[in-house]
């Protein structure tokens, strides 16, 4: 996957690493996400935007939940191509991306795993995408999203997120992209101002995990 002419870099210090390049990291945000969807009878509807994977499907369906999968990063790359940031400014490209990636009915999902995709969207598209996510979430639904908390990084890695267990994620580097802007807490709060609550988890590896409740 190519996101413009960007060298591969990895600003994150891995907590642990296996020879395949995957990182294993603890995630309090994902733990809270699972807690929010914990109902005895299961049957919740979860949207995983990291692309379909055996690990994520098996984990989420083991609770009796219904899982929908899509790869939002692949949809972004397909919609915006090599001029990744410039093409996002085009209204027609932006609308094509929204129609392709977020064409779900209102109130479709109890949980959405956006992972780190939002930080690769330019304003005002990022605001439109967040509005669409809130639209397709059910009342009291939860959304988990990540933002890099490293102020100095000029490029950001793009990962595939695989669920190991309720508190552990496996991150496999896919590509890298130039950073658009640094999203601090104030910006993130404003981004989700239409949600009922926003909870932050700041981790040691400079990743801001954000749990949003509709």
């Amino acid at each position, binding site marked *: 996957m190519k996101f413009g002419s960007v060298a591969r870099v990895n600003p994150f210090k891995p907590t642990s690493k296996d020879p395949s390049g995957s990182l294993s990291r603890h995630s309090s945000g994902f733990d809270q996400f699972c807690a929010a969807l914990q109902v005895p009878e299961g049957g919740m*509807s979860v949207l995983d935007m990291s*692309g*379909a*994977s*055996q690990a994520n*499907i098996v984990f989420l*369906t083991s609770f009796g939940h*219904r*899982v*929908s*999968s*899509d*790869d939002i990063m*692949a949809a972004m790359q397909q919609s915006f191509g090599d001029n990744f940031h410039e093409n996002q400014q085009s209204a027609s490209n932006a609308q094509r991306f929204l129609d392709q990636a977020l064409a779900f009915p209102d109130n479709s999902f109890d949980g959405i795993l956006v992972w780190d995709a939002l930080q690769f969207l330019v304003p005002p598209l990022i605001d439109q995408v967040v509005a669409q996510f809130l639209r397709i979430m059910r009342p009291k639904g939860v959304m988990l999203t990540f933002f890099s908390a490293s102020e100095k990084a000029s490029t950001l890695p793009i990962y595939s997120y695989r669920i190991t267990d309720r508190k552990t994620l496996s991150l496999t580097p896919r590509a890298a992209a130039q950073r658009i802007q640094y999203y601090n807490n104030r910006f993130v709060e404003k981004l989700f101002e239409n949600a009922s609550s926003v909870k932050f988890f700041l981790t040691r590896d400079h990743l801001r995990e954000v749990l949003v409740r509709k």
Partner: protein
Amino acid sequence: MSSPTKSFEPDSSPVRSGSAALGKNVTIKGQIFAREDLTLDGEMEGTIECHEHRLTIGPNARVQASLKAREIIIQGSIQGNVEASDKIDIRREAKLVGDIKTSRIVIEDGAYFKGSIDISKAAPPPKVVPPPQPQPAIVPPAPSSSGPAPVIATSGSLK
């Protein structure tokens, strides 16, 4: 000397079901109902039903159809809903856009899938309740000539 006459008896062994294959140069529009394993490697538009058997969508297949089978292996491209009573196996080179309903799913890294997944566990086998054992008939003993007749209490009083 005459050679012994050979007699040919019809093969009494059960007929084995084989498998059918539609190659990559085959294009079908319509419905397919299969009573054996089926491999499709061409183009298909419509529906495919392969109950109690395996359906394989080959790497060259381009399918716009809803699929139903006991087991489905996907290597090609499908646009449509897929339902397997046992298992769905999505290989690395597969591309599936549609909803899935199955008891088990295997998806290789690299496969593209967009849609929802409904895992429905197979219904447990019905409990076998043994039929009630017939109770032996209670036969009162025959009255003895040497002794008095047994007293059977009734609601009335004995006189």
